[in-house]
């Protein structure tokens, strides 16, 4: 049975490899937190990363938010019409955006727009041995390169998710009220009566903050841990998107089951 043995051996190797990487990622996270003092003392470093991962993601986030809200408006109207309660369109759009779609879709977009570029940047720095050169000059690459990118992402993500939700609500309003003709007052008043600041909006912000930490950590880790070749960097970028997407969706389920349990 040499064939079966080698299969089992390869399987075991893959599992051990995953656990190894997970442990390294955890240690890496601690190291980022430990050396992140510099990214706050030298604020321009972090500001630059907020510009790259936040400001440059604005367009895709705002446009996607608008379109997701418009689709929600159309589909929600179609369904609510059957029950004769189209006035509830506002609360439906607002709740689905602030609770779920805002943080999750903004997180997925953020991972593919900003996370990939962070991974590519750090991976290429590693491939061209810039990180080693920094180490030689007694500059800690985690403090100088990794931590500002991490904090830039963590800071930008909740703001992007909030903008996504706000644009989505406006998109739903545009379709529902302006084009289809749902009553404007009922749209907003039902929404305001049903959406709670603490329960719905704040939980959404907490979610997007958690997603920001997860996506930023995955992006910087994959870049830092990439094989320093052209192929290795490209694989690291792919892994960033795949791992971020899976992590966001899994975390979303866990957070939702904690936050919105038992009521309504």
């Amino acid at each position: 049975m040499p064939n079966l043995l080698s299969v089992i051996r390869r399987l075991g190797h893959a599992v051990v490899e995953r656990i190894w990487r997970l442990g390294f990622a955890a240690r890496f996270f601690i190291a980022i937190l430990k050396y992140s003092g510099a990214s706050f003392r030298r604020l321009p470093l972090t500001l630059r990363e907020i510009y790259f991962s936040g400001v440059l993601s604005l367009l895709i986030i705002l446009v996607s938010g608008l379109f997701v809200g418009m689709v929600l408006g159309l589909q929600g109207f179609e369904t609510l019409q059957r029950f004769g309660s189209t006035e509830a369109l506002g609360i439906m759009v607002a709740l689905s955006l602030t609770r779920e779609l805002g943080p999750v879709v903004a997180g997925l977009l953020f991972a593919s727009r900003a996370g990939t570029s962070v991974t590519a940047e750090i991976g290429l720095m590693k491939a061209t041995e810039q990180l080693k050169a920094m180490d030689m000059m007694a500059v800690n690459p985690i403090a100088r390169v990794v931590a500002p990118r991490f904090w830039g992402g963590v800071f930008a993500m909740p703001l992007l998710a909030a903008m996504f939700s706000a644009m989505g609500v406006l998109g739903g309003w545009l379709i529902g009220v302006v084009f289809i003709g749902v009553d404007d007052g009922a749209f907003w008043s039902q929404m305001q009566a049903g959406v709670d600041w603490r329960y719905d909006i704040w939980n959404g912000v907490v979610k997007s903050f958690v997603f920001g930490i997860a996506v930023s950590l995955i992006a910087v880790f994959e870049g830092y841990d990439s094989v320093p070749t052209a192929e290795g960097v490209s694989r690291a970028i792919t892994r960033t998107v795949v791992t971020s997407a899976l992590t966001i969706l899994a975390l979303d389920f866990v957070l939702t089951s904690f936050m919105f349990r038992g009521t309504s």
Partner: protein
Amino acid sequence: MNRTVLDLWVGFFVALGVAALIFLALKVGNLSSARLSETYVLHAKFDNIGGLKVRGPVKSAGVVVGRISEIRLDPATYEAVVTMNVDGRFQFPKDTFASIYTAGLLGEQYVGLDVGGDEKVLKSGDTIAKTQSAVVLEKMISQFLFSKAADGQDKK
């Protein structure tokens, strides 16, 4: 010199994000739970609460004056004990009547407080003595049908 332009963009980004949050807080949500900061607790016991939910509204004369914070079953009397957080600005007389109503035919259920005439007011932690349970539609229909059937027999 590039840095000042960068600062401008980051400032713009942060301002936009904060504006979106304020929009969500004020226009989408209504900060209602923040306004109910000064609250006191009232209890009420019901035989049947129907579909009443935690965080449901407590209304007096149709105006929201509080939220339901807890619903549990009294193990001794098998009654449902509903705990409410009521806005501290409103005091209710001792003989206030608590009933469970439904908003519209398919709407959510809420606790309605019908004010009595007593001069003493309910304090925090008091239990409302007079309550009326939720109307269970099936019971009402079966009562109606039985009374109809009884009418039909009388005429024979």
